[in-house]
């Protein structure tokens, strides 16, 4: 630490206020880090593999990491006070935790695509259905066209129902308010965590058992809407709340009515946030498995009509195929999972772009 003594400095006006550097790694730091990594690797390689009877990559990595922490702590302690030793050790633990989470996410995405490539490589996978095709048939027969169509139909209906309801509720909670809105908010917040299986069970018992509706796409859409509305409403309310109050007041002060204020000022300002809320809800709906498992029924043929007959969808197709245990069916399931993951990734990228636009506009 270099301290500039201010009293004796003649050029006091030129004195620069240098902030303390907290993220800087000196040569010494790098060396102790690298040295500890290497020495712990060498030590563990000898002891774990050859002296002790250890085996397995996971075990090796765990033992290596623990040894590294010990050695690194000792090395840092040789030339630094205790607080710095703790800081260094915590830093390496945090890096390891972050790496582990990213690694788990990465393997999920990469592995799904890697296993899905066998099925996705066939064009018929996207254009044909499984009607009349045995689950054990080779991959150049049949496909998941029916499941893709089913997902789009079901989610489309669910969007048409839940976006107006969700955003309307958000407008009510954020812009209209009143005593009653607090109750609505409490219930909506509690319902964002409703296990999807319960929404499915609710729709199954009411629509299918009581009203005699067949298992169909519309039943799945209804159940999806039940889970999507609270998610959209909650996220949209947050988006409406961050619209600066000054904008609202300016509009009202200019004589605009409340409805005009909401329509011309609040909703446009929150557009990006509302789109994000919608996409959040859609991403949830697309991936819902328990709901479609209970309400829609797994058809093997193409259905466009959401009322009246069973309708397959991507999550349901994945689930039923995996449960058969047939290697070919599992391969198809991974193909369908890649398609599903691609849809989710696309929605996700759109959300990011919208969010970035918002940040730029600010």
């Amino acid at each position, binding site marked *: 630490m270099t301290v500039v003594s201010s009293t004796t400095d003649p050029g006091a006006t030129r004195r620069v206020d240098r902030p303390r550097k907290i993220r800087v790694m000196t040569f010494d730091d790098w060396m102790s880090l690298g040295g500890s990594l290497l020495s712990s690797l060498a030590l563990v390689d000898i002891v774990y593999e050859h002296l002790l009877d250890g085996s397995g990559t996971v075990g090796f990595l765990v033992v290596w990491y623990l040894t590294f922490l010990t050695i690194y702590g000792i090395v840092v302690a040789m030339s630094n006070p205790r607080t710095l030793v703790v800081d260094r050790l915590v830093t390496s633990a945090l890096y390891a935790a972050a790496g582990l*989470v990213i690694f788990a996410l990465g393997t999920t995405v990469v592995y799904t695509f890697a296993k899905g490539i066998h099925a996705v490589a066939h064009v018929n996978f996207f254009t044909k259905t499984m009607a009349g095709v045995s689950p054990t048939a080779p991959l150049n027969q049949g496909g998941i066209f029916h499941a893709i169509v089913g997902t789009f139909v079901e989610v489309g209906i669910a969007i048409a129902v839940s976006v107006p309801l969700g955003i309307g509720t958000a407008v009510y909670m954020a812009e209209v308010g009143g005593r009653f809105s607090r109750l609505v908010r409490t219930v909506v917040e509690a319902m964002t965590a409703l296990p999807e299986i319960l929404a499915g069970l609710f729709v199954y018992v009411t629509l299918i058992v009581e009203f005699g509706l067949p298992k169909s796409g519309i039943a799945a859409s209804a159940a999806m809407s039940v889970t999507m509305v609270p998610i959209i409403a909650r996220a949209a309310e947050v988006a409406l709340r961050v619209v600066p109050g000054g904008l609202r007041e300016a509009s009202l002060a200019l004589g605009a009515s409340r409805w005009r204020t909401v329509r011309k000022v609040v909703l446009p300002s929150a557009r990006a946030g509302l789109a994000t809320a919608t996409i959040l809800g859609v991403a949830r709906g697309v991936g819902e498995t328990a709901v479609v498992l209970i309400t829609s029924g797994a058809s093997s043929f193409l259905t466009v009509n959401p009322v009246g007959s069973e309708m397959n969808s991507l999550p349901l197709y994945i689930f039923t195929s995996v449960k058969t245990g047939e290697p070919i069916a599992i391969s198809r399931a991974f193909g369908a999972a890649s398609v599903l993951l691609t849809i989710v990734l696309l929605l996700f990228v759109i959300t990011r772009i919208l969010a970035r636009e918002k940040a730029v506009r600010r």
Partner: protein
Amino acid sequence: MTSATATAPPPPPSAPVRPPLPPRRLYPGLEPSDRAFHGVARSVGMFVLVMTGSIGLFLGYQSIPTLRHYGLHFFTETQWNPELNKLGIAAVLVGTVEVALVAMTVAFPLALMFAVFITDYAPRRIKGWLVSAIDLMAAVPSIIYGLWGFFILQPHAINLARWLSQHLGFIPIFHVDTDPNAAVWQQSRYTSSAFIAGLAVSMMAIPLACAVMRAVFDQAPIGEREAALALGATRWGVVKSVVLPFGKGGIIGGTMLALGRALGETAAVLIIISPAYVIKPRILEAGTQTTSALIAGDFGEASKSQLSALLTAGFVLFLITIIVNTIAAIVIGRSRSGAATEI
């Protein structure tokens, strides 16, 4: 308003005579168009309230016949055997809690550390990417985590499970009813367990908890951070003395939120576990059952009375998740963060 006019003092007699102005009405009421707007918005809110609220009431109402028929035995019976008229959710509830606890034991430290890493340790360039990664992790469908858990995680996790039962088998929860030290060990005794299902569920719990924690940590007052740094704190010192105390509400709330999700998770659990209706503390051993997996697995061939029993199980799950979530919402709401933005 009217009381204000009534109590206004009379003008002093010496002053020039000026009739007192009636106070301006501050809230002149709404125009008809606005009244219509409020009405529509309120009815949308009402509708959503009725739609979502009716689920709870409906489940509660439907579970009355079951509770009347089985009484308290419904909560103490472990078997789920409709043919013998023996139904109970004791084993299922224990399984649900076990899976959720395993998930949270893994997810809590990882989510907390990742959140701290994002806000205080990550190089600024990659911070945005890490936030995106967490959001993406939350968006990945649970069925895909199920595939991941079953096909990638399980082959590795059974080794860990065996290691745990070898060295910590004297603790009941890590015990497995087989010889862990056998040269040819029975791998199938370690698969499809609550442990592995919990690991897969933790992948869904981490992003939820982490997102809440990160949002709260980000709002830790910059002045307090800088004050700690100015006093010579290391980065960990700042985290320990400013960020974590500030974010306590977010830590608890985020964890509860994730716990609520873990309790209700269906698809991933259904893929991984093999059903077993016994109360067992041995989380590493094959076979367990959770409430949501029970509902998803049994609704198809259920008769009217069994459906009512499933609805009762669902109602119990509903109550648990709602309680957990309401506590989470209250804790997050009470923390120091979350004020509105104003210009």
